[in-house]
């Protein structure tokens, strides 16, 4: 297929041309998805940590539910957030529909289950090893959880990256609640969807390649960060 060759060329031209429009779109993508991941981490990590160390009736059901919600269809999440934020919805007065904030909300909902479920597994495994030692330090459960989170930071970083991957690659939710408005809510994935609908397949693929390169760069940075931390003796 000549489309692949053409799209690599497009991708190169996009990057080398340093198109300011592209920069705007990439920047908004990163801003929205990173904010969503940070907010999702603030919500999801404590949920995961709590589920990891606590025992109560119904815990199994909650864990299964949270894990299943990793597979939430973005379009459904987008639709629900749209219905809430719409002027006809309960949160209409906030006037958030078709703003980056709406996109952050939708992506946060998509990412929270991923972070909570993966963190739960990581911390539960870690807790088996650490439980007695942390109890011996005489710490309260809150301080123990904090230590567990810090001890699991490298695994949890991978969890956050998984969440970021989901957020930045997702199109179904942001196109509904963001509206793909030029210069306001247009991100990488919605641009790809738009160019595909215009039949500009090479350009769409080229943008896809740019997206992959960005995701690769972020993961590589995280990897290097960990390597550097390990070198400075904090294994």
């Amino acid at each position, binding site marked *: 297929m000549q489309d692949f060759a053409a799209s690599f060329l497009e991708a190169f031209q996009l990057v080398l041309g340093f198109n300011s429009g592209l920069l705007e779109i990439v920047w908004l993508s990163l*801003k929205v998805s990173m904010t969503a991941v940070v907010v999702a981490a603030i919500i999801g990590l404590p949920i995961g940590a709590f589920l990891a160390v606590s025992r109560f009736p119904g815990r199994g059901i909650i864990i299964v539910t949270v894990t299943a919600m990793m597979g939430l269809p973005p379009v459904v999440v987008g639709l629900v957030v749209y219905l809430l934020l719409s*002027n006809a919805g309960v949160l209409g007065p906030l006037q958030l*529909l078709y*703003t980056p904030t709406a996109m952050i909300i939708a992506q946060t909902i998509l990412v929270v289950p991923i972070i909570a479920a993966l963190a739960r597994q990581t911390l539960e495994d870690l807790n088996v090893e650490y439980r007695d030692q942390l109890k011996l330090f005489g710490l309260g459960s809150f301080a123990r959880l904090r230590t567990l989170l810090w001890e699991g930071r490298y695994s949890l970083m991978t969890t956050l990256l998984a969440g970021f991957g989901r957020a930045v690659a997702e199109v179904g939710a942001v196109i509904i609640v963001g*509206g793909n408005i*030029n210069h306001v809510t247009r991100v990488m994935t919605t641009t790809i969807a738009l160019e595909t*609908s215009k*039949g500009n397949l090479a350009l769409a693929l080229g943008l896809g390649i740019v997206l992959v390169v960005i995701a690769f760069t972020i993961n590589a940075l995280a990897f290097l960060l960990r390597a550097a931390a390990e070198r400075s003796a904090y294994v």
Partner: protein
Amino acid sequence: MNRKAGLIVGFCMVVSTALTLGGQSAAQDHILLQSTTSTQNSGLYEHLLPLFEKQSGIQVRVVAVGTGQAIKNARNCDGDVLLVHAKAAELAFVEEGSGTVRHDLMYNDFVLVGPATDPAGIKGMMKIGAALEKIARARAAFVSRGDNSGTHKKETALWAATDVDPVGYSGTWYRETGSGMGATLNTASAMDAYALTDRATWISFGNKADHIVLIEGDPDLFNQYGVILVNKERCPNIKDRAGQQFIDWLLSPQGQGAIGRYRLNGEQLFYPNGS
């Protein structure tokens, strides 16, 4: 303590970012246009909107979806102005009180596109109805939007005038994509199928493969675009003054002239007929 402070600072940054990002929507100098996709995909807005924005200082934000979706969004008060192409649905929108007044804005036409090999042999036919019947008889692949959009509504109306009910053949030679115009044309390209599209989208479409326009010029293929201000009485949040200003400009000699001057690949895509 440092880590805790860092966390708090980080959290504040996130919240403030979220607020600034959201805060843009609170500004009064923009309106939201719920629009059909053809006007956006053809590049008309990139030609038109800067002219209006420069003159009025009002930014027009376009949400481009199918006509059916655009009307639904506007009915939910999620838009100040509606610009679509399905006259009956537009009039119903005004009738039910969701919109104020409907204005004709511009027109172009629909075309029937298909593979150059033309398996049903319809090329050169003058009447769209006869061509559709011939496609049905030949069981030649036909791709439909199937998404309640303006183009889909038009296509349904055209079939209704024939003696064929294509939905009965859905899944055989009649394929409903349930997608936008672009996705549907991509499908038609890949399947060597016929499809109905508006001319603006077709001209600007980048993945024509070996598809060409086979039927055009039938008065039944007329494609009228209309513009409506969403009714403030039903939707107190809408910016009726800025929205009306935009509609007035579109209908003014200036706006109409700008529409008529827009060319893509040397072709005129829209013909102003505002009133």
